[in-house]
């Protein structure tokens, strides 16, 4: 309605201008006054329209009750893995994850961020990232709600940002980027796959984190830092602490980071023995055994390079376990964009989860196609050399994601 009024007034202005050019000189003063008045009215209407637009966002449908600014978005991820064991066993499942991003700027330096997620999946260890179970029964769908991030943030500058609530840890190149959806897919490296007792570092915590970044020189380089203390949401008994420092070189389009942390492993005493099937094994190549609760420290390095036609990600982590053998894992992944929207990926993933459970290696080949700026199709094939089972495993993952 505002826009229509603005248009009408603009045409009115033109008509007045046209009249000005033809009217007798005596009437010109009156017309000029009228023109000024119309101009003011147009400006007022435009300001009102801008104000409404500013509050709602140009594409938002909802109005924030008390926030200065409200952003709502999300994504839907669907994956359909198919497993083909070299012992002739096969399996498959599906997983669907819908995650909403809700961010409200509640005051100048204060904001709220929440990402409620809704998932549905067939019952495998990949299905429920919050509470993995090791059943292999398919055809019995599970579903639920998961809030992977919900925090209050204070930030008055680039140098300081403090978050309190449930937040993602700063470790892991893919963990930082894809976060929880990656646990539903095999996009995450083996060191991050369920179960949490098998992971090198925690992926998300309830607690407090602080961090920021500093400009270094005028060439665009940055120094970044993060530190946190918190508890795993499914294991609130013990604190985890950690941090990350990173240096971004604009000239190399690369970020180098150092990571360290520690805590106590969560207990999954009910999950023991070898993986009972391939579709379980792919999620977690290593069996978790009783009394896995023990103190640990970890250290890791990462690099992330973003070029116009290629993205390269690497990381190497090692843990120091109090009662168990140490874990060591790493991966190198390169994506080459054949066209601006079609990329080919290869990843080599290595993980030794410690305690004489063998070494798993995985080769992954992928094709991603960004059909539109917010729609992605993906097709990936993996070959996993199993540490425990008697035969290796091949699996294919097809899926798509839509962001809004």
């Amino acid at each position, binding site marked *: 309605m505002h826009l229509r009024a603005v248009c009408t007034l*603009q045409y009115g202005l*033109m*008509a007045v*201008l*046209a*009249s000005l*050019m*033809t009217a007798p000189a005596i009437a010109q003063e009156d017309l000029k006054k009228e023109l000024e008045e119309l101009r003011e009215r147009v400006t007022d209407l435009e300001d009102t329209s801008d104000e409404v637009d*500013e509050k709602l966002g*140009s594409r938002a449908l909802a109005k924030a009750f008390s926030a200065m600014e409200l*952003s709502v*978005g999300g*994504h839907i991820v669907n994956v359909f893995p198919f497993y083909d064991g070299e012992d002739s066993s096969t399996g498959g499942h599906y997983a669907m994850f819908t995650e909403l*991003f*809700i*961010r409200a700027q509640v005051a100048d330096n204060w904001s709220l*961020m929440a*990402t409620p997620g809704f998932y549905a999946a067939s019952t495998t260890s990949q299905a429920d990232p919050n509470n993995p179970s090791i059943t292999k029964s398919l055809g019995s769908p599970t579903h639920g709600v998961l809030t992977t991030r919900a925090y209050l943030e204070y*930030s008055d*500058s*680039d140098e300081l940002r403090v978050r309190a609530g449930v937040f993602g840890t700063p470790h892991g190149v893919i963990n*930082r*980027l*894809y*976060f929880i959806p990656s646990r539903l897919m095999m996009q995450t490296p083996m060191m991050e796959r369920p179960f949490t007792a098998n992971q090198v570092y925690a992926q998300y915590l309830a607690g407090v984190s602080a961090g920021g*970044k500093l*400009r270094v020189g*005028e*060439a*665009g380089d*940055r120094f970044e830092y993060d530190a946190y203390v918190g508890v795993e949401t499914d294991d609130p008994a013990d604190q985890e602490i950690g941090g990350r420092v990173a240096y971004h070189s*604009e000239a190399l389009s690369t970020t180098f980071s150092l990571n360290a942390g520690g805590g106590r492993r969560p207990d999954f005493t009910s999950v023991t023995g070898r993986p009972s099937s391939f579709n379980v094994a792919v999620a977690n190549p290593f069996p978790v055994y009783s009394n896995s609760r023990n103190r640990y420290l970890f250290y890791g390095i990462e690099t992330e390079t973003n070029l*116009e036609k290629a993205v390269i990600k690497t990381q190497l982590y090692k843990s120091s376990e109090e009662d168990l053998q140490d874990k060591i894992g790493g991966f190198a992944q390169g994506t080459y*964009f054949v066209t*601006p*929207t079609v990329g080919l990926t290869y990843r080599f993933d290595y993980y030794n989860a410690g305690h004489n459970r063998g070494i798993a290696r995985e080769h992954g080949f992928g094709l991603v196609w*960004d059909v539109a*700026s*917010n729609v992605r199709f993906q097709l990936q094939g993996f070959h996993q050399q199993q540490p425990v089972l008697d035969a290796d495993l091949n699996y294919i993952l097809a899926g798509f994601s839509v*962001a809004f």
Partner: protein
Amino acid sequence: MKSILCVTILLSAGIPGERHPADSAAGRSSYAVIVNEKNGYGESGEAAKTLIKQLFLKELKNWPDGEKAKPFDQKGGSDASQAFQKGVLGMSKAQVARHWLNMKNRQGTTPPKSVSSDRKVVKYVAKYKGALGFVKAAAAKKKGVKVLFTF
């Protein structure tokens, strides 16, 4: 009759401040990055271009003096937007799209507000001290804004 003729001439000349389609022939136009006239940032050249890139992509939130940056974009697909992506960001449209998906995933950060004309960009940049935007060079000579660099 004369009035109708004049209105027709005015309409065909376009609304003042809006870009005429004939101006948009690729390669002929030069564009300017503008900031609020009260902005104290004094660098130019590559250093300024790098900072503008980081502020526009929201990798940094503040100007060096601590003022909060408020970037404005032009409608996607416009000549100005394409020229800015190529000349200042040094990124393809697909790269920019991936960047904003990543920023949203990581911290819920959304792209800069997108507006539909040079006139509106100038108006917003003149309104907010930390604002920045890009317009056709010819449209940059307005009260309340100053040119940081052209591309």
